[in-house]
């Protein structure tokens, strides 16, 4: 097999891994902070992509503003949903939160299908990022390199904010002991709303980055969240770093598998999850609680 194909596939794996990392990071933040499994995480990815597409087709807003505006919008939609619906779940058995987000996912997906059918819509690569570099062993499209770069930068920045800043400190405290943190004067309910917004905005950002690579359609992201499940089970949900590293690694692994054994490529992540559950149920980065 030519090196072009191998590295081409690895690049696809890296891109997917970068998106998995963003989605899993947002997912882990939401779960850590709110205790909610956001089954709709893939739907917010779709909303982010659609947001960019709509901005272009209805308002003439191009890629660069959309890169900021669409995730922002996605975050706002998320915060509205948290404030009105999701926050009602905190008092209940955690399962209801999962089922609510599942219902929301179906409803939102169905609504988009109603208006846009299931076919995909194209979104153009911005002019500045057209073309690519010929590295000899492979051809590296500019846009794809950009997508991976932005994803990794955002992941690391998010990690930094959470671990090293006072906002992150408040988030971590609220995650560990919400009631006591409130007794220290911190508005935890507002923090939860904000946290959910951030978690889904990350998914929305992945959506915008993905728009020029994959076509924009209501079905995108539908099955993505299941991969996210596998990633956070493998990575151990307590760890922000775990979600990022595992997302990237499993994406690359998926790409690698595509070159060696294409039929098993979409299953390899789940097989890894199966094995990790046998050997270290708490996850690679997790601790037994």
């Amino acid at each position, binding site marked *: 097999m030519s090196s072009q194909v191998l590295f081409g596939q690895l690049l696809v794996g890296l891109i997917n891994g970068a998106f998995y990392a963003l989605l899993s990071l947002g997912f882990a933040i939401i779960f850590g902070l709110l205790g909610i499994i956001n089954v709709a995480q893939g739907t917010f990815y779709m909303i982010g992509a659609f947001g960019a597409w709509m901005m272009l087709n209805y308002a003439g807003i191009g890629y660069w503003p959309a890169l900021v505006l669409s995730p922002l919008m996605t975050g706002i939609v998320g915060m509205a949903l948290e404030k009105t619906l999701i926050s009602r779940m905190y008092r209940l058995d955690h399962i209801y939160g999962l089922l*609510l987000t599942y219902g929301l996912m179906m*409803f939102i997906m169905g609504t988009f299908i109603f208006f846009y059918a299931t076919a995909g819509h194209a979104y153009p690569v911005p002019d500045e990022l057209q073309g690519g570099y010929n590295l000899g062993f492979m051809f590296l499209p500019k846009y794809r390199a950009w997508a991976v770069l932005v994803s990794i930068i955002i992941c690391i920045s998010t990690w930094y904010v959470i671990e090293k800043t006072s906002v992150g400190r408040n988030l971590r405290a609220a995650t560990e002991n919400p009631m006591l943190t409130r007794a220290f004067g911190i508005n935890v309910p507002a923090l939860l709303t904000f946290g959910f917004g951030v978690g889904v905005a990350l998914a929305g950002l992945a959506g915008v980055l993905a728009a020029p690579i994959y076509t924009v359609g209501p079905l995108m992201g539908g099955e993505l969240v299941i991969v996210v499940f596998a990633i956070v089970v493998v990575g151990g949900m307590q760890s922000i770093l775990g979600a990022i590293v595992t997302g990237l690694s499993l994406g690359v692994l998926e790409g690698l598998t595509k070159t060696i054994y294409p039929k098993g490529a979409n299953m390899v992540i789940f097989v890894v999850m199966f094995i990790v559950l046998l050997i270290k149920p708490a996850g690679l980065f997790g601790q037994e609680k």
Partner: protein
Amino acid sequence: MSVESAHATEVRWAQWRYVDYALYALGLAALLIAPFFLYPLFLAKVLCYGLFACAFNLLLGSAGLLSFGHAAFFGAAAYVAGHALKVWQLPFEAAALLGTVAATALGLVFGAVSIRRQGLYFAMITLALAQMIYFMAFQLPFTHAEDGLTAVPRGLILGLFDLNNLYVLYYTVAAIFVAAYLLIVRITHSTFGQILRAIRENQQRMISLGYRVNDFKLTAFILSAGLAGLAGATKTMVVQLASTVDVHWATSGDVILMALLGGVGTLFGPVVGGVIVEMLQFYLADSGLPIQVVIGAIFVFCILLFRRGIVGELQRLRGR
């Protein structure tokens, strides 16, 4: 929460016994005469999904374990039974048995791995594992990928009666349904069922009392998987088709909705939920409205305002 009403159900069981017997007699009578008023094939299909929902609810209502991948068992059995009927030309009894065994074995493998984690992790793992089965359905030769197993022959039941006769078909399915339902009732009210509910209420306590909780949970999981498989195998015979839809995550979601709508933790609730969801899918199939919108809306509505489900609310009104 309707799960609590299952607790109360046991306590009041003795008092309401006669009313319940009457209701069950009524239900049985309805089951017997229904095919003369409604299309038997549709009824048979509804019974299959009703059984699927009851099997799922056995796990959730008693053990408190939310499996988000039950379609794996339903669909795996559907494929195995379909293959047995179509390619190996086995009689339906054998095909149903094989399907059920396949689902049970799958339940053992998946259960052993997922039981290790609790609550939400468990739900996520079951979904991920089921997704593996979904992908396999596209890869394995015998499943024929997107086409699925079509034109599956029905054959004879008991070597005598032609299942292509819709009345024979219906009564066969009804018999299977009643038998399986009674089994679920028996399990739920047995000591095993009580222990499961105790584990659901306070697992730590049961561990300290010396119960091997994981063994109980795994057993419940395997039972639930096997019964879901029975439903799937029977479904294949009824609709003469096994396809990737049967192993899709939306099917897992559908069965959760059936249990939720009907009443988690009640015995008859999932059947009611199954009837409603199947009817919904039937009527919405030709309308322009995507089924996901309706399913999603009902889910959200139930979670916010109607967690006890239909039968759960009725039980509450009865003072259970």
